[in-house]
């Protein structure tokens, strides 16, 4: 249980009312004999933008998927806003409503247009009326700069546009935090900026974010903390600018020298 980054909050475990949003305690995850996460400890406080970097296969995606319970874990605890995700009385579906997630491959619903993609969860999960859901959806599409694409099917949109719809779709549930898994990695270079721009303004609005990315510029400009993962553990974490300028661990140095 790492408390070194939250000296201003109450003792562990986090309880509602404090501003600890995500807490991973010694999380172990394996697929068969493959140990993918080998004791992850991570605390994310309200409004933080935690940027996660690391080589391919180091378990970054798996960690994100454990945070919202898409993957079961073998050991450890995942605590979301004071609630144990795997607690006996916890409904993970309820918790997931508070955690937005955006994927590398967009994963928009191809049989629905942009507006319907954004409206679906508020209507089906939160039982909002169609009018209310549509108001929320149009508002969000406007915020991500796609008000004029409401009726477009995903296949009619560019990658960057699809990803912005995906962000709007996640935001439609009014989540308390957002997880981003290499959301610009599948995009043509000229489309990366529009998506990062949306993420930056989201961060500036105070959203708590965990962002897996290779965009070191984003890490430096927007990140409030940088985490380097390798082999299923957190190797180093710290202030993004400091860490990028002078990484302490040899593995971090090696990785940064390759991506910068």
């Amino acid at each position, binding site marked *: 249980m790492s408390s070194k980054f939250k000296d201003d909050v109450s003792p562990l475990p986090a309880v509602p009312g404090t501003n600890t949003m995500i807490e991973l305690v010694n999380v172990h995850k394996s697929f068969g004999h493959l140990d993918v996460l080998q004791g992850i400890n991570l605390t994310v406080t309200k409004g933080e933008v935690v940027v996660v970097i690391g080589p391919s296969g180091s378990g970054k995606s798996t960690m994100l998927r454990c945070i919202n319970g898409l993957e079961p874990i073998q050991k450890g605890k995942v605590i979301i806003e004071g609630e144990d995700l795997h607690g006996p009385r916890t409904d993970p579906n309820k918790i997931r409503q508070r955690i937005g997630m955006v994927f590398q491959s967009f994963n928009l*619903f191809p049989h629905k247009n942009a507006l319907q993609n954004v409206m679906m969860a508020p209507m089906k999960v939160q039982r909002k009326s169609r009018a209310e859901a549509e108001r929320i959806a149009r508002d969000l599409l406007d915020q991500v700069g796609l008000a004029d694409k409401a009726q477009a099917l995903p296949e009619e949109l560019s990658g960057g546009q699809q990803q912005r719809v995906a962000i709007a779709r996640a935001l439609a549930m009014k989540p308390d935090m957002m997880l981003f898994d290499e959301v610009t990695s599948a995009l043509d270079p000229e489309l990366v900026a529009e998506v990062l721009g949306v993420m930056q303004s989201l961060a500036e609005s105070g959203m708590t974010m965990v962002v897996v990315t290779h965009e070191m510029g984003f890490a430096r400009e927007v990140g409030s903390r940088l985490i380097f993962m390798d082999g299923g553990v957190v190797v180093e974490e710290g202030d993004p600018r400091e860490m990028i300028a002078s990484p302490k661990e040899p593995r971090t140095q090696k990785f940064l020298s390759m991506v910068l």
Partner: protein
Amino acid sequence: MNAFFNGEIFKDSLWLLVQQLPIVIEVLVLGLICAWTWGLILSLIRLSRFRPLRYLAGAYIDVFRGLPLLLLFIFIYYGLPHAGIKLNELTSGVLGLTLCYGAYSAEIFRAGIQAIPKGQTEAARSLGMTGGQAMRYVILPQAVKLVVPPLTNEFIAMIKDTALMSVISVPELLFTAKEKMGVVANSTPLTVAALIYLAFTIPLIRIAAMMENRRRKSKPGGKPPSGITPEAEKKLFDSDIAGQVPKGGEGW
């Protein structure tokens, strides 16, 4: 030639057989609705996260895909009465179609559901949907589109298999034609029955072929926009969908 095509008998038989069409259509429509519903339920059980149920559904599907439909009809109509269960001809026919074609449909639906990329379920679940909601609002609407061509082929097979019901005295086309054949001592009624079958099946065969063509043409780049992998799609459209045990622990 006269033995197979006698003008007078042709007219007679045509009238006679057309009168039986409502029964054939009734059996078919009921059989189709029941078989597809049963198949969808079976496929969902087969993909569910309850292991015993999953195996049970798998066993059912294997057994009923492995049995001759003719045997099934005879068992239901002539066998079950020995156990005190007596069903009339039509009910027996619909039940036979449902049991057998339910198993085939289940495999088609399963392949269709599994052809939808995993990311779709994950996106739905990450929004807070339950497994059931993800299936209903995200996976099934996409899977249903994929299974229309194979289900059309299944429908064609089912039309032809109504002829098997002649052994349990359902007054369908073959049964009626055979009776008429005995009366007129001529094969023309059979010719008429054949033409009526073709009038139903050939348009469907053409439609199925058209859908197949459109599918081929619609993806010059090889990858359909929804991200369904070509392998998954091929598996789905292969005429015989081999029964595969779904991956363990991946239930919805």
